[in-house]
């Protein structure tokens, strides 16, 4: 977060490596990758071709995939992009709970395949942000043939491209835990992946395995979000640092999300963290990760907590 602040102030940052002005951005073609800076007073420019189909996966359960999917998708909607979030967990559905839309899910992909409803009838439009829609794969206790789900998801993404409202800018797929049929279903239509991990060895091992599977399936654009970071534990060397995680996985950093109790409260309320006023630290980090996702950028520096400087007597006089 602070690295971005430094990057906006070229005089102070030794890490500042790229300067640009909004005017030069307008002349650049849309499909080129943009190395840009986070700036508060401009909208991020979409890099790559629409729709950008991104799968959010981790391998290990409980690291924050669904929270990341909910917050990043709403951040993208707030930035003005049309977003369709797909909960690809066949048996266990959670994304609607985090978004507070659980009472509005009437039809799922299961009903679409059976012909009981159309695709636009199964999409749940968020009343807070009209450019955000949710699609759930199935209701609990419903059966979907293994292997068929992957095709169905590919057809769905293809149908979303050709709908009357226009192609969505982003299709975010919340992948279930594991590397089973649900994982295979979720990654089928994806072009990019966001790997969510925590700085502990079990999560890292699973993340490495998932990264290998994604690369085998042809997904090369994989970025990493390190979740539940405790800078105090990193300072005390009780937790791996973000740079250690990056060294182990070898993936570019999309975001670093600090541990925040507001995550649980927002889950209970069905109100995503990024909508908090005043914003929580984790919410700010999610917003910045969404910004980088739009512009296909990655973090250039991370924050490491240090001991505060001991002030001498003369510091009282402004020294």
């Amino acid at each position, binding site marked *: *977060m*602070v*690295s971005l*602040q*430094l990057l*906006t*102030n070229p005089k*102070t*940052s*030794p*890490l500042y490596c790229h300067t640009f002005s909004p005017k030069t951005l307008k002349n650049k073609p849309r499909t080129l990758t943009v190395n840009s800076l*986070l700036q*508060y*007073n401009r909208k991020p420019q979409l890099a790559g071709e629409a729709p950008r189909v991104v799968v959010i996966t981790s391998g290990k359960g409980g690291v924050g995939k669904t929270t990341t999917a909910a917050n990043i998708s709403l951040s993208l909607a707030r930035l003005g992009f049309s977003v369709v979030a797909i909960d690809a967990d*066949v*048996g266990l559905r959670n994304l609607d709970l985090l978004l507070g839309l659980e009472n509005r899910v009437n039809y799922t992909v299961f009903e*679409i*395949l059976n*012909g009981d409803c*159309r*695709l636009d*009838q199964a999409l749940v439009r968020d009343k807070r942000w009209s450019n955000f829609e949710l699609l759930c794969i199935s209701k609990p206790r419903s*059966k*979907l*043939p*293994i*292997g*068929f789900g992957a*095709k169905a998801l590919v*057809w769905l993404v*293809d*149908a979303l491209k050709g*709908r*009357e409202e226009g192609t969505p800018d982003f299709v975010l797929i919340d992948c279930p835990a594991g590397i089973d*049929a649900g994982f295979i279903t979720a990654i089928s239509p994806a072009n990019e992946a966001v790997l969510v991990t925590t700085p502990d060895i079990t999560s890292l091992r699973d993340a*490495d395995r998932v*990264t*290998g599977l994604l*690369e*085998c*399936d042809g997904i090369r654009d994989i970025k990493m979000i390190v979740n539940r970071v405790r800078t105090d534990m990193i300072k005390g060397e009780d937790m791996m*640092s973000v*740079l250690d995680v*990056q060294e182990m*996985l*070898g*993936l570019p*950093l999309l975001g670093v999300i600090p541990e925040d109790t507001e995550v649980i409260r927002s889950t209970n309320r069905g109100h995503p963290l990024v909508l908090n006023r*005043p*914003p929580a630290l984790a919410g*700010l980090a999610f917003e910045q990760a969404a910004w980088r996702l739009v512009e296909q950028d990655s*973090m250039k*520096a*991370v*924050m*490491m*907590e*240090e*001991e*505060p400087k001991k002030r001498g007597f003369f510091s009282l006089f402004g020294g």
Partner: protein
Amino acid sequence: MTTTASIWTLHFHSSSFPIPILSSEVRFRRYLEFACNCKNCTSRSTLRKFIVRAVSSDDDKRLRDEVIVNNSSKDNAAKTQQNPVAMFQESISSLPLLVFKTGKYSGVSFTVGLCIVATLLIIVVKGYAARKSRHNRPGSVADLVRRGQLRSDRRGISTPLKYEDPFNNPMVKVSKSNSSVEMCGKVYRLAPVTLTEEEQSVHQKRRSRAYQWKRPTMFLKEGESVPPDVDPDTVRWIPANHPFATTSSDIDEDLAQNNVYQKHGVPFRIQAEHEALQRKLEALQNEQKLNKLVIDPAAARDFERPLKSHLKSGDQVEQSTSNPKSSPNPPKSDRAHNSCEQTNL
């Protein structure tokens, strides 16, 4: 006050009115009646009566200064002293009276002062609240400052932005000498990311060697044989007790694909129900006149949505179409009774 006045008057008179002090005796007689109890000063409330008489031995001039101060003493002790030391002691002992008198009047002034301070405080608080509400008024220039469109220091709005602008937050202090940042009471150092392109490719090669995986395209149950032209790495074996899986496809793939791409028209189930309802209405209209159309409970049950599958609803449609023919029409009195019930509802 009277006591004070009395004392000072006494002095005043002695100084302002030159009393010719003759060599002859001057008798200065003063009658003092006052309670002199140094231990019970607070209970004392006295007014003194001084009778001062200066008597000159010269018979030609007689000056008589009388300063009369009424003395009403509550205490019983009374002293008459002519000794200067005793007079001094008396003057000292009279001081608590002065304190008591000033205390009486200081209570009033204290109350007045308190009211003035309270009024000033209320005015200051109201002014502050008004100034704050002026800045928080929706659509005011303060909103432009908050959004970062206007600089706050130009307008003299000194409240620092705490949360609205995370990228230009004055609460975050960036050190110019080293890459450290002070934020939320903690100091952070910026560590640059050191991952290079070469290191990324090394990791990718490592993973490609470690994880050999092909996407499964064939899902088989236990006991089924692998087709000869299928890559064995793409075959997935499904356990028989898998809770949410079935290998036999109950869904026609082509039909499912058509359903996914369906943009217009009513979905199949809703269309089928609508057509069944239309048939029922037409059948009823053929038998009854439109102006005497009454919904009797027996027919209303036929309009209920079938809860189970479409096939069963089709059976019910057939039964309802056959029932009106077999059952006789209800008598006119019953029809009227039913219509009254319906209007009441």
